[in-house]
């Protein structure tokens, strides 16, 4: 069975949590004890409907304030697919948590309140989905029940959104519009007779029909060495395996490889997954590789195919999503974690900041505040082996770690 990870995005009160609760309810994924708890609490609060957000807003502070603060991961499955939904916050101040949720997702839902239409937050969510190159995006125009299921209203919002789409740099993104009411359950899992003018799929039908081949940007094989396995036991005295995860493409026994940074050449001798040998390791498999030659490799080094090298450089420019209350300032030093590799980096220059409404207008600056997004140049103390993010999601992304607090303070997408 396939697994599909979906990130949700939408402004406060657009009904993301309600939508997820509705999906769980209509696919009969809510167990009876959880449903009872929702019924009980909804009644206590005096609501005349079931408050599905209670299923996803897991923190006391979230329930008190009625908002989502941090990403919740929700699981359900149909006969066809397993789903993981990253329910991300809508508040501007939690934009970083939205980037977090979207970074591991293959598809996204952007919710729009049919009464409000495209607002500043919609720009932001669309921009982030673009930045992260999420290939399949559904624009769910929600609360259709509150606009009398008006086709005109729906078309007007769709037209506004299409204006945004014209400005995006990631043109391969597939965008689907669906009119829904999460509260009433229209076009979420089941079709409604209230939108006879809409002939497309329901939200769930859309995801059920998605072909994974269409949503992945595979890239070429990269094998960062995560852990060196040297048992030194009688049975495996000379075993020297390089454990890691294959990113992009495939690696096979007999492939000629180059070890970075030493640029030493060798050939893949064996590929193990646990105690079984395989001829080929596909992407995202956590294998252990042995080489024909004794070469010195340690954590953070990388094996790549001899005919397909990444960029090896001590500097790069990237789009940064800043996630900390202390600003990023030109001249500051941070740890760049690129895959499993950590190097020290100095901020050379902050180029253009994206305007807060994400309308695409740049402004000059030399510092970034929480939730700002900008182009930033870095100089490193050691070279790293990278690809552009648009060509390789894994090898083109990194995180920034504050050297004093150890916090993850930024996410980067190499351009």
């Amino acid at each position, binding site marked *: 069975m396939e697994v599909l990870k979906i990130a949700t995005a939408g402004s406060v009160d657009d009904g993301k949590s309600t939508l997820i609760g509705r999906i769980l309810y209509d696919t009969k994924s809510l167990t009876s004890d959880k449903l009872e708890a929702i019924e009980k609490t909804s009644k206590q609060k005096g609501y005349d409907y079931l408050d599905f957000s209670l299923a996803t807003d897991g923190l006391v502070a979230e329930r008190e304030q009625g908002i989502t603060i941090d990403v919740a991961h929700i699981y359900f499955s149909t006969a066809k697919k397993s789903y993981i939904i990253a329910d991300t916050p809508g508040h501007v101040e939690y934009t970083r948590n939205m980037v977090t949720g979207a970074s591991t997702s293959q598809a996204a839902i952007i919710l729009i309140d049919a009464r409000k239409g495209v607002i500043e937050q919609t720009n932001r969510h669309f921009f982030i989905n673009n930045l992260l190159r999420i290939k399949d995006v559904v624009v769910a125009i929600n609360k259709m029940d509150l606009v009398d299921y008006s086709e005109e209203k729906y078309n007007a919002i769709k037209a506004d959104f299409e204006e945004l789409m014209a400005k995006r740099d990631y043109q391969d993104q597939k965008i689907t519009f669906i009119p829904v009411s999460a509260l009433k359950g229209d076009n979420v899992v089941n079709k409604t007779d209230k939108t006879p003018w809409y002939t497309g799929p329901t939200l769930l039908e859309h995801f059920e029909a998605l072909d994974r081949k269409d949503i992945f940007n595979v890239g070429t094989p990269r094998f960062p060495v995560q852990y060196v396995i040297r048992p030194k036991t009688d049975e495996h005295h000379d075993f020297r395996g390089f454990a890691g995860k294959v990113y992009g493409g495939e690696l096979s026994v007999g492939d000629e490889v180059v070890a970075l940074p030493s640029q030493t050449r060798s050939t893949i001798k064996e590929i193990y997954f646990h105690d079984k040998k*395989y001829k080929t390791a596909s992407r995202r498999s956590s294998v252990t590789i042995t080489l024909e030659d004794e070469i010195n490799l340690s954590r953070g080094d990388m094996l790549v195919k001899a005919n397909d090298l990444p960029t090896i450089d001590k500097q790069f420019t990237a789009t940064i999503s800043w996630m900390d209350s202390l600003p990023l300032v030109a001249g500051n030093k941070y740890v760049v974690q690129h*895959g*499993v590799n950590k190097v020290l980096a100095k901020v050379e220059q902050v180029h253009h900041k994206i305007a807060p409404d994400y309308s695409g207008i740049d402004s000059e600056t030399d510092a970034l505040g929480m939730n700002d997004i900008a182009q930033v140049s870095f100089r490193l103390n050691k070279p790293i082996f990278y690809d552009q993010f648009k060509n390789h999601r894994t090898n083109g992304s990194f995180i920034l*770690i504050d050297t004093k607090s150890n916090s993850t303070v930024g996410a980067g997408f190499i351009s």
Partner: protein
Amino acid sequence: MSNTSTELEVTPSLELLKDTSHINALENEAIYIIREVAAQFEKPVLLFSGGKDSITLVRLAQKAFWPSKIPFPLMHIDTGHNFPETIEFRDRLVEELGLELIVRNVQDSINQGKVKEESGRYSSRNSLQTTTLLDAIEEFKFDACIGGARRDEEKARAKERIFSVRDDFGQWDERNQRPELFDMLNGQIELGQNVRVFPISNWTELDVWSYIKEEQIEIPSIYFAHKRKTFLRDGMIWSAEDGIVFREENEIVEERLVRFRTVGDMSCTAAVLSDAESIDKVVEEIRDSSISERGARIDDKRSEAAMEKRKQQGYF
């Protein structure tokens, strides 16, 4: 453990190494996480309760480092109210795999006056574990504790990161978690802090059972249907054996055919009626169940935020 295969085996399961198969994708993700722990930390430990989730973790750790042994010990925080079947199983597993096991007892914390035993109808030692755990972390200076928690278990768990940083009081600050992006796990901490690591965060209860079935992993017998002396309270079935669960005189003991879905402290783990004697039947039963796993954990029903509050105090 099976031996090295000498031939080059190109099995059909080669396909399964791709992440198009859900359970194999989860397995590959968990192995990656466990290796990150071994690489990034000085003194990691695997928290082992003898339950299905921590048994699954042990199997994943074996796979992560083969043909080396698991490069960290296991630790069991024993409430003293464990099912005897679980303890027997624990000791056998550790011996068979040649692993190091550390046991620390809640009873010792009670004797030292650090925690107070609860009394009455709903008394349980579950929350007392936290103190014993935090003391053990300090004693051994563990900087990473691998645990078998899953995000589908409970709504506060659903908010937890894979690398979840705790301060030097062992506390979880749910408002200020580190962003976790792509596959990159940031394990940088200060002395005194520790990280709780959850490699099977993205697994569901059914995933764990499916994996146990696929891998033919042995689990304690209490997970399968057996006859047991029990009594009913609040619509749940409690074990009347060993006298550990508090029972009123009017609560009548009867023999029932039951199994346990979750194996925690006996005083807070209810049984379910079941005739599932095999792993196939268990998987079938979980698939059709309309009650969540935590529905049988009385300590989660204490309040809407029971789990979150325990986690803030350092519960794992």
